[in-house]
């Protein structure tokens, strides 16, 4: 068990003007289980990195002190375990057991103790396979369980979890939460960062809310924090249980058919699927990880050629081009009709500044420069990006990058907008803006297709849902 003590702590990353965290006074006692909240940009991840001793001295500027059991975190590394968001980039070894053993080897654990400890850690997280199971063959939820086992095998006094379920579907997330709960009946202090508060509450006994400008905004048992500050926290972008989002469904029936998938599939990723996309309708595509939802989005988006069946555009959408399937269209013709927003916004960035990024599409389709500028300014204002017009897209925060990737797809005014996990990992404020924006577009007559495993998002905006059932991975 470990104690955490922060006094006036602040950290500014090298080369940044503003502080990621500042003026933080916080004490976490032995065995406490803390949920750390705050709107995006309040420095939660930076704080966890500081506690894990992962902020190198030369990578920024520090104010105040951080202590773990009275030690500076870089000297207390052996007392701290951390699990990150992305399973792909935290598993080291090819076999599951070897991965758990990795940390023990690094710490110089005697060989005869390693495998018993590996087995114990795997049991504690409810890992269902043997030690030789290839890590690449695990689902996202199982991979995160394994990452948790890798941290627990080291017997950390302090366990830090940085949005461990953010990349997972609801089944995978439940698996990981069960593992966190099961691992909890031991003497570990826990600090958890999680966007979706309702699911995380059973795991914790204390909630700490960070203030974006610096310091702590609220601190105490969950019920008290949410009773006293719930409304204000929700307004600031924190997901607070019991503050439902007003749904925005279509006022009228959907309009004409724009795009249709007829038994369209891509072996082995997607079984043949039928789907129709109509103007004025928001359609949600649901299903477990591995069912081929993203693949379906790519087929509809004219970015992949189906191996079976076909995707066809109607003449309402494509005029004379409707004779050819969307994947055969030139890119400049495609972006005027179908816009695609990828799960990882960074994949889509090609320009050096936010403004150039928005101007790219309109220029590509040959719009005159004054029209391009007008469109860029309109989108910057509409998606609250105007202050970032000159920023490099790769330096944006998660929420900003998501808004920009949606804005780039809107820049060429496509009738169909296809989004892959648009609400994933967003704070409440960005999330609400997205719902409003997509509902507005739908009401203007666009067709919106969202691949998602966010049930709240579906409840808030979808007029119709389609569930894909495949998926063995």
């Amino acid at each position, binding site marked *: 068990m470990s104690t955490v003590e922060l006094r006036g702590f602040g950290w500014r990353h090298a080369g940044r003007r503003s502080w990621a965290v500042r003026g933080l006074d916080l004490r976490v006692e032995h065995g406490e289980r803390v949920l750390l909240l705050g709107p995006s940009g309040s420095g939660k991840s930076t704080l966890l*990195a500081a506690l*894990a001793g*992962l902020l190198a001295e030369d990578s920024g500027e520090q104010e105040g002190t951080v202590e773990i059991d009275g030690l500076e975190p870089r000297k207390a*590394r*052996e007392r*701290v*375990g*951390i699990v*990150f968001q*992305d399973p*792909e*980039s*935290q598993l*080291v*070894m*090819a*076999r599951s057991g*070897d991965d758990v*053993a*990795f*940390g*023990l*080897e*690094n*710490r*110089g*654990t*005697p*060989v005869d103790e*390693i*495998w018993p400890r590996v087995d114990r850690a795997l049991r504690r997280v409810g890992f269902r396979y043997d030690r030789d199971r290839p890590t*690449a063959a695990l689902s996202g939820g199982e991979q995160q369980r394994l990452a948790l086992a*890798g*941290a627990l095998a*080291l017997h950390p006094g302090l366990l830090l979890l940085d949005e461990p379920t953010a990349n997972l579907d609801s089944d995978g997330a439940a698996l990981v939460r069960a593992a966190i709960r099961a691992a909890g009946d031991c003497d570990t202090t826990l600090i958890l960062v999680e966007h979706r508060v309702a699911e995380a509450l059973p795991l914790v006994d204390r909630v700490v809310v960070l203030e974006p400008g610096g310091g702590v905004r609220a601190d105490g048992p969950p019920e008290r924090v949410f009773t006293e500050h719930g409304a204000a926290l929700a307004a600031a972008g924190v997901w607070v249980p019991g503050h439902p989002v007003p749904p925005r469904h279509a006022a009228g029936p959907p309009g004409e058919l724009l795009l249709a998938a007829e038994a369209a599939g891509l072996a082995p990723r997607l079984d043949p699927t039928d789907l129709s996309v109509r103007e004025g309708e928001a359609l949600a595509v649901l299903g477990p990880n591995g069912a081929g939802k993203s693949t379906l989005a*790519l087929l509809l*988006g004219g*970015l992949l050629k189906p191996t079976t069946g076909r995707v066809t555009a109607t003449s309402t959408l494509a005029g004379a081009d409707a004779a050819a399937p969307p994947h055969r269209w*030139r*890119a*400049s013709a*495609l*972006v005027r009709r179908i*816009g*695609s927003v*990828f799960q*990882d916004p*960074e*994949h*889509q*960035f*090609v320009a050096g500044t936010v403004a150039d990024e928005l101007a*790219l*599409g309109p220029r*590509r*389709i040959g719009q005159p420069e004054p029209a391009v500028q007008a469109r860029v300014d309109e989108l910057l204002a509409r998606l609250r990006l105007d202050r970032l017009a000159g920023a490099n897209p*790769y330096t944006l925060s998660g929420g900003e990058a998501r808004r920009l990737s949606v804005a*780039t*797809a809107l820049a*060429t005014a496509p009738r169909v907008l296809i989004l892959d996990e648009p609400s994933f990992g967003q704070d409440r404020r960005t999330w609400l803006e997205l719902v409003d924006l997509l509902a507005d577009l739908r009401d203007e007559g666009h067709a919106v297709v969202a691949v998602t495993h966010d049930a709240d998002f579906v409840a808030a905006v979808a007029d119709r849902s389609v569930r894909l059932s495949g998926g063995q991975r």
Partner: protein
Amino acid sequence: MITVEPLTTGTHAPLARRNPVAKLAAALVFALALLATLDPVAPAIAIGVELAALPFFGISYRALARRAVPLLLVAAGVLLTLVLFAAERDGAELLRLGPILITTGVLYTALGLALRVLGVALPGVIVFATTDPTDLADALVQNARVPARFAIGALAAFRLVPLLSQEWQSISMARRARGVDVGRDPVAKLRLFASTAFGLLVVAIRRGTRLATAMDARGFDSDRPRTFARRQHFGPADAALIVGAALLAAAALGVSILLGTFRPLIG
């Protein structure tokens, strides 16, 4: 696509079971010896030895043929290029096709080089086809005193390689979704390739940095001496494999010298 994934796992073939470092060393000794000569005889013998050794590594000829397709293409390319473009055209004339004169000398050199490519590369193909990358990294650290920071770090990076081809596909599709594509203009194609490659580099560096952070969080950068969960033993049979490889390579060169075909690389 060139792949180095093992073909056989948990094999009990006598040579596949040898210590990975011993296999690697044997392959290196064997291949380096071949580099000493330019004649076709020594590499031809070496290829014969390699093919004869295949069953002892538990690899079927069919599996090797599939794996060696890129290698065969390279060898064929070498052969063709030299036959067409070699500067020295000595020896007896065999065939004249317009401006191309094929002589025994040209054919001899070309065959020598093509066989060398095969003879030198095959041992590597065999070793990687029968070696689990984790075992290789373990053995390099434990038996060859390679720093763990390097061997295990490379192993972890190696695991990210398959992800890169997925990322490349994603980035390419994302560009198209942004309205970026090129027709037949080769310059525009090259520029798109460069910008996609840059995007991939950014993504790869970010992912690599995250992985490195996660590894350090589990003490990879600690000063403590590491322990080894998986032992790799280097025994007499492993030493014998290296010695055997050296002897067979010497024999191949010896035959070539006796036949008078030996052409040293230097001198």
